[in-house]
Each structure stands twice: as C-alpha cells, then as structure tokens.
C-alpha cells in the first residue's frame, strides 16, 4: 500500500507524547498493508519538535513551517495536511484523538472526501480487507468498521496503543512548502490550566473525585493524596458541572479517556459516561459510601466508607509506607 502520514501534535514548541501512540498505530497499519510511516510537523520555528519526531522510528519527518502555522487553526492545518497527502500520495493519515486531532481530521475528511474512523483502538486484516475497531455507545460496544475509498483517515485512542520507543537512529528532516488558508478563522487567545502535576492522559496514577467530594475546598484532600502518589487529578462530570474542578479534569465519554496503572475514584457513583473514560485502567479503587454504586462493579478494590474518613487514613498509611 501507499505510505502513511502521522500528524504530530505539539504545544508551545513541545512535542506531545500522545503522538508516540499514534506512530505505533500507523506502524501497525504498515505491518498489515505495507508502506512506510512519515511524520508531519506544522508550525512556526518548530525544528526542535521535528527533531524529537525524528527519533520516533519514522522513515522521515516533513517540516512545514510558516508564521501562519504559529497558532493552530483547523482550517490551516487541514488544508496543509491535504496538500502534503496529495503531493506524497499518502494512503493513510493518522492523528491523536485529542481535541487537536478531533478538530482538524474531520475537516480533512471533508476536504479530501475521505473516510475517517474516530478514536480507533485496534486494526486487523481479515483476508484482504482492513478492519478497524472503535468504541461506540460510551464504550459499551466495540464496532468493527470498514472504510471505503481513500485515503484512510484515523484518529487514535492514545491508551489503546503502546507508545513508540524513542531513540535509535534519527530520521532525516525534510522541509516541505505548504500554503495556509485561514477560511475566515483567526486565533485570539489561549488560557492554560496551570498544573505542576503529571498530565491526566499521561499519568501513571490518577485520583479522581465526584459529587461525593461536596465542595471545591475539599479537593485539597484529593490534592494531598495525589501529591503523595505523584498522581494526576481527575473529576467526574458532576464535580465539573458543580464548578468544583476545571473542565479539562473531566474523565469520561465527553471528557478525557484515561488508562493509568492505578485509578482511585473518590465519591464517584460510576455513571455510564464516566466509566467510558476510565474502565481500561489497570487497577481501579473505589471509595464510596453507597455500597450499591455501580463503580463497585468495575473496581478491583472497593471500600464502602465515608471518603472524608478514608482518605485521611489512606494518606497516613501511605506516609507510613514511604518512611518505612
């Protein structure tokens, strides 16, 4: 098959690790259908990002630079990727299923009249036919999907593919000329949620709280536990809607999809839409007063208790463990 293109995500000149899982997914396709995997970096003064991308095991990195790509816009990105796809006759394009990939990849689908499978978790070949797996209905069904026509477009669920190994030989970086058409869009501003903690989608451990935490100030307790574990903090939709936690902490069907080694759910009932975001975690701990809460059906270790008693006890136990 034709070659495969991975669109690299970066923010403020920093390569985002989610691209590593995307490279793995692209290589999985290359393993099934043949072809080589290249990476595309778009931006302004992003040679450093291209340098990191060159170490991910791709054949080459295409670098499209220009002031117009300095701030991400769906219109300029989709247009530039379409130019690169056509010039290189790429047969498939991969991007992360982050808000970045979810924003411009469907626009690319419209520009190229190409089929797009969102948030894929698997690729396989049945006879000569390529099949893609993707979660639907809040993760309660895994659809097996066939794409007709091409080029094939995919956004990749980061937690479903191992990160490509960094290091090894550096791939060459080639400059490509791409034009940018903004289509009536302009960047105005960005407001970052500042945090010293690991990023939610990359954390080894996550402590999440829901309605049971009762107030914003009680998140201090969550923070204390998270700090001891070097964990990221998550929240259920109920906690976010109540204004106790920022929106981008939300874990679930409509928030972030996470799969850490340890997920601790505090005062979270376990609604369908929350489970959709965390049920692939390796170990799930639930602390909840309500023994009937659905979260206990997926928890490896469930503790029926008042979180305001249990969490301070847990903090004390962990401190003991650390000093031992």
């Amino acid at each position, binding site marked *: 098959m034709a070659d495969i293109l991975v669109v690299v995500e970066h923010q403020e000149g920093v390569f985002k690790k989610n691209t590593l899982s995307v490279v793995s997914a692209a290589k999985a396709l290359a393993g099934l259908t043949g072809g080589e995997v290249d990476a595309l970096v778009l931006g302004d003064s992003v040679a450093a990002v291209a340098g990191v991308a060159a170490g991910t095991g791709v054949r080459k990195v295409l670098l499209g630079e220009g002031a117009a790509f300095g701030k991400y816009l769906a219109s300029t990105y989709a247009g530039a990727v379409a130019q690169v796809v056509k010039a290189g006759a790429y047969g498939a394009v991969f991007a992360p299923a982050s808000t970045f990939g979810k924003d411009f990849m469907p626009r690319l689908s419209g520009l190229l009249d190409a089929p797009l499978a969102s948030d894929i978790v698997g690729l396989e070949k049945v006879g000569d036919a390529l099949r893609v797996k993707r979660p639907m209905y809040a993760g309660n069904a895994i659809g097996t999907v066939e794409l*007709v026509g091409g080029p094939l477009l995919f956004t990749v669920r980061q937690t479903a593919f191992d990160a490509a190994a960094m290091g090894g030989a550096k791939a060459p970086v080639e400059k490509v000329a791409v034009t940018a058409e903004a289509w009536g869009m302009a960047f105005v501003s960005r407001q970052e949620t500042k945090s010293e903690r690991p990023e939610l989608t990359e954390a080894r451990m996550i402590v999440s709280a829901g309605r049971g935490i009762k107030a914003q100030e009680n998140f201090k307790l969550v923070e204390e536990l998270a700090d001891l574990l070097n964990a990221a903090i998550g929240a259920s939709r109920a906690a976010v809607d109540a204004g106790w936690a*920022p929106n981008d902490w939300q874990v679930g069907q409509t928030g972030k999809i996470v799969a850490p*080694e340890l997920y601790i759910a505090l005062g979270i009932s376990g609604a369908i839409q929350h489970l959709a975001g965390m049920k692939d975690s390796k170990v*799930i701990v639930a602390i909840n007063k309500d023994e009937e809460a659905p979260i206990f059906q997926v928890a490896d270790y469930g503790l029926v208790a008042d979180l305001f008693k249990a969490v301070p006890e847990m903090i004390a136990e962990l401190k003991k463990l650390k000093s031992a």
Partner: protein
Amino acid sequence: MKILVAIKPVPNPDEKVKIKGDGSGIVLDNIKMVVNPFCEIAVEEALRIREKLTGEVVVVTVGPKEGEQQVRTALAMGADRAVLVEAGTDLDSLAVAKVLAKVVADEKADLVLMGKQAVDDDNNQVGQILAAVLGWPQATFASKIEFAADNRKANVTREVDGGLETIEVALPAVVTTDLRLNEPRYASLPGIMKAKKKELKVVPLASLGVDTAPRVKVLSYAAPKQRAGGGRVADVAELVSKLKSEAKVL
C-alpha cells in the same frame, strides 16, 4: 440571524445498551429515543441568540421518519420550524454532512449550530466535515459564543486539552457545542401544544441528489472486555496493603 440547528435522535444515554446476539446491531426495542444531549445544547444556544438578535431558528435532522418525535421536542423548546430529510437508515458522517450542506445552502443560514458529538456513534465529525464542504470557518467544542457588534463575526471559546482557547470566526460559520455552553430549557406544555402546529417539512433524501453511499461501514458490534471487578476490602489498611503486595502498584 438565521440559525440552522442540526439534531440527532439517539438512544437514552443513561441506559446501558445491549448488543444483538449475532452482533449485527444494538437492541433498541425498549430504549427511549431522545434528542442527543449536545444537540439540545445547540438548540438552546440558537434560541438564546434569537432572543437577543432576532431571526429564525430552523431545526434539521437527517434519518428515519421516526426522528420526527425528537424534532417536535426541539420545536417545543422554541425553534420556529423544521426540516426532516428522510433517509431509511443511519448515514455516515460524510453523507450527513453533504446532505446538511444542501439544506444549509437552500436555507441560506448565517450560522449552523450542532452538538460536538452524538452519544451513540461517538464520532465527533459531522460539524467539521460540513464546514469543509461549505468552505466555512469552524469552531468546535464551544463553551461560549460572543458576536461582534455588526454580527458578522463571533468570538468562540473552545474547550481544548490543557485549558481554553478563543478563536474568531467570520459568519457564516459552523459551531459545535460542548456541555458547558448552556443549560437547555425544558419544553413547556404550551410549547408542546404549539409545536404540533409548527411547520415540519419532510424532504425525501433522493430529491437532494447527494451521493450517500456509505464510506464508513459498521460491520458488527461486540461487547467490550468485561472487567472482573466487584472486589471489596474491609478498611483502608487492607486497601493499602493489597495495593502494595497484590496489585503491586504502590
């Protein structure tokens, strides 16, 4: 301002869906169909814009005739009239976007509002594809929309990984809604009565001359891997000890 709101009927997201024994589909017999929650937010936003700037709110859906019921719900919330493009089955995102593009052109809309994703297929695609097909700007995952004084531009705040981002889009534009945009109103009883008399135009899909051959086909559905789950511990000491010695995560 003329606002087109695209809506989709979906199975009630609070009920857990069951997969047919042969994997050919989802069992929908006893599940209530509702307006996709993100679409409700889009309808609400359109109504609020109309309340401020005057104009018309037209609801559009593409799919089986049964969708009429959810379209009436949107009319009962306060939309002015509706268009139902009658397609026998669910179409894929590319097809829906191309059909919507026809309706948008016919209606000469200034703004298209729609949900960021439908909670059944979880695709998060149609708004963006539509913007590309129309050659319009797009603002996805919107949590705030503010119009410029001349109503020809809007600043849209978007929910993105790591925080918020604001972009400016020139109208006409496609905006997809996130959960934080607003709190949708309930349809009042008089609203429901009035909705029965509002215009609902049914357009046969074939009359639009759009190629809707499926490009993304769902061949089968399977249940996800089930977790064992259900384990219990008596107290915090047991929890921490098991996390260390049994699960080996501490």
